[in-house]
């Protein structure tokens, strides 16, 4: 449950950027969160909404795009995506020799400002 720290970090990053570039209001913030990043999207939205009141983002909506865990198998060469936050074997051939390429993202992609 470190979503509160994450929400405060998001507000820091976007406030800094708005101050530097002269924007006065943030209307929405789009995030990319990997399935395996250890973040509960509902808890992040809840804590963001609780923390945003005295900031430029007081009316901002948090939009979260979830990135599924994905990678490729070294043995069968296939690309895969998983629903879970972890993979123990290649979902295609069962091999344990695979590489994870995405699913750990925790990024602010863009924001809508005025």
């Amino acid at each position: 449950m470190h979503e509160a720290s994450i929400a405060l970090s998001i507000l820091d990053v976007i406030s800094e950027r708005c101050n530097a570039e002269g924007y006065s209001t943030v209307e929405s913030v789009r995030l990319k969160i990997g399935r395996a990043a250890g973040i509960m999207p509902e808890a992040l939205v809840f804590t963001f909404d609780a923390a945003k009141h005295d900031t430029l983002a007081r009316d901002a909506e948090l939009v979260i795009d979830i990135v599924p865990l994905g990678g490729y198998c070294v043995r069968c060469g296939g690309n895969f995506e998983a629903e879970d936050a972890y993979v123990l074997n290649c979902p295609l051939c069962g091999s344990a020799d695979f590489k994870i390429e995405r699913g750990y993202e925790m990024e602010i992609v863009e924001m809508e400002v005025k």
Partner: protein
Amino acid sequence: MKVKVVTRILEANERLAEENRRKFRESGVFVMNLMGAPGAGKTSLLEKTIEGMKNRKRIGVIEGDIAGTDDAERINSTGVPVVQINTGGACHLDANMISEVLPDVPLGELDLLIVENVGNLVCPAEFKVGEDMKAMVLSISEGHDKPLKYPLMFQESSALVVNKIDLLPYVNVDIDKLKRDAVSLNPALKIFEVSCRTGQGLEKWIEWLNGLN
């Protein structure tokens, strides 16, 4: 108007962690971030590790807890320098909390600094503090299902210390499954089975840690 931001959310923490790391390197101090659930035996492992290593390495400790100084007092009685951080509610240590107490840590007089994180299997794995290595303690009675329930911590750790191994005959825990799942999540993970109560297995852990820095 849309503005591209493209910033890692924890970038500020990572920058501070890098700054801490630079200070540790300059002083030649190796830093271990020790994580695990409340009651797993993190402080007990620390006491035994200090006892077994203090003739070979100059050790210092930063204790992270939500409240209280019990752990710092336990470490203090082993004779090594210790600083207590009370997070006042936060469930993990971050790079800024470490950076704020660094003036109280005698880095120039240390070879090994151990940061004992707040008891929690989730959040500490997310926040770098400037460490060279992360290790985790899991007591055997916590169950063999923990790697698949809390994968990130097992993936982030270089070593897993399975503590209270003397309780194995009394609990319904499949230690082979525990080890198999942990290694599947992290093939490079070193696993040590120890009991801080009986002393079983501690020597191997201490030799390994001593050889790292």
